[in-house]
Every structure is written in C-alpha cells, then in structure tokens.
C-alpha cells in the first residue's frame, strides 16, 4: 500500500523504498514492543497533501512513556539490534509520537517539495 502511494506520488525507487522501510520498521516495532508479539490491532491511515505525505499508525498496545524508548541506538557500536528506530528517523522528515491512555499514535511525515517530488 505504501509503495502504491509512493509510486502514485512520483517518488523514485530509493525514496519509495525509504517510505516503505519506515512504515515496515514502525509496524515491526509496534508488534514487538507495543504488543510484545501478541495479537492486536493497528489502524493505519494515509493523508496526502500537496506538500507532504503523512502515515499514521494507531496502536492499542503498551503506551510508550519513556522518551529514550523513542530513539534509535548510537551506531558507533556495530552490533545487531536497535536499528529500526534509527532507520525510521533517517528515512522520514518528521516522526511524531503521542502516548494515549490506551496506546500510541505515531505519525510519519514525508515532505514532498524539498526533494523535488
């Protein structure tokens, strides 16, 4: 779905991959950390504006309340794990998170104009 929208908006191959990567990493992160690999619902919404794309993920898992949980690890230490959040932040222009009483709301923002798309 993300790739379809990326292609429709004329993003190139690398940028479409970045968008798909960020969405995929966030999805995996919610499954692992929000739901701890249990069954659960994730509502995904897309908003397309002339200047930006927004992808929202609403989960009903454990609310993230500690800011340090929202950061990727430092990359100086080459080891497996912890890359997902770093890649989300690296791929997207903005990443917003809101802790709710019953879960989390995540918003990924991709600016269209500065990249010339």
């Amino acid at each position, binding site marked *: 779905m993300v790739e379809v929208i990326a292609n429709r908006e004329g993003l190139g*191959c690398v940028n479409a991959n*970045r968008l798909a990567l960020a969405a995929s990493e966030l999805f*995996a992160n919610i499954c692992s950390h929000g739901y701890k690999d249990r069954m659960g619902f994730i509502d995904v919404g897309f908003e397309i504006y002339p200047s930006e794309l927004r992808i929202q993920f609403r989960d009903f898992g454990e609310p993230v309340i500690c800011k340090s949980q929202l950061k990727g690890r430092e*990359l100086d230490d*080459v080891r*497996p794990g912890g*890359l997902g959040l*770093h890649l989300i932040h690296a791929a997207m222009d903005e990443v917003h998170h809101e802790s709710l009483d019953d879960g989390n709301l995540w918003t990924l923002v991709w600016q269209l104009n500065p990249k010339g798309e």
Partner: protein
Amino acid sequence: MLDIQMDRSDDGRVYIRLEGLVDFHSSPALRQKLHPLLTPDNQEIHMDLSGVTFMDSSGIATLVEGLQWSRAQSAKFTLSGLTEPVRDVFAMSKLDTVFDIVDALQK
C-alpha cells in the same frame, strides 16, 4: 518471500545468493542458514545481494552477525550486488563503510 541458495567449496569458501525480501518475516530463516556457517572451518563467506529487492533492520542485523564473525575469526565476509535501495539502507545505517562491499563476486 526470500530464496536462499548456497554453494560451499572445499577450500572453506561459501557463496550465498539471496533473492527477494530480507525483512522481519524472512530474516529468521536467513539467520538459521547463516549461523551454522559462522565457524572457524569457513574462511570466506560471500553474500550476493543482487536479487534482494527490500532489506530492513532485521536483515541488516543478520548480516552484522556475519561481520562480527569475520572480525572474531579474521575471516572474510563480503557483500556484493547491492541494488540502489539496499545500498541506501546500508548508508542510512552508516554501515556502508563498515562492511566489505564489492560490485560483483570474484569466484
């Protein structure tokens, strides 16, 4: 879907060709195949990624295990044939200068 083809020569060189998506779902299968190869018996592992259309952090993490093995064993762990999107993921991870990345495998 991820297709994993392996070829091991008698002199301890292993060639692995991946085709498809290396993601959250398929990385455990890759790890399962790669892990038994990370022994002192093998001196070189070459991963041909020319058929990889998507790679996420779990795929990168699996390859980092190969990198760590190569450092611990003074062995070679080489990646080749990275497509533009996959190379971009390595660059965003700041691992493009850490791995031994070549254009094509030298058999």
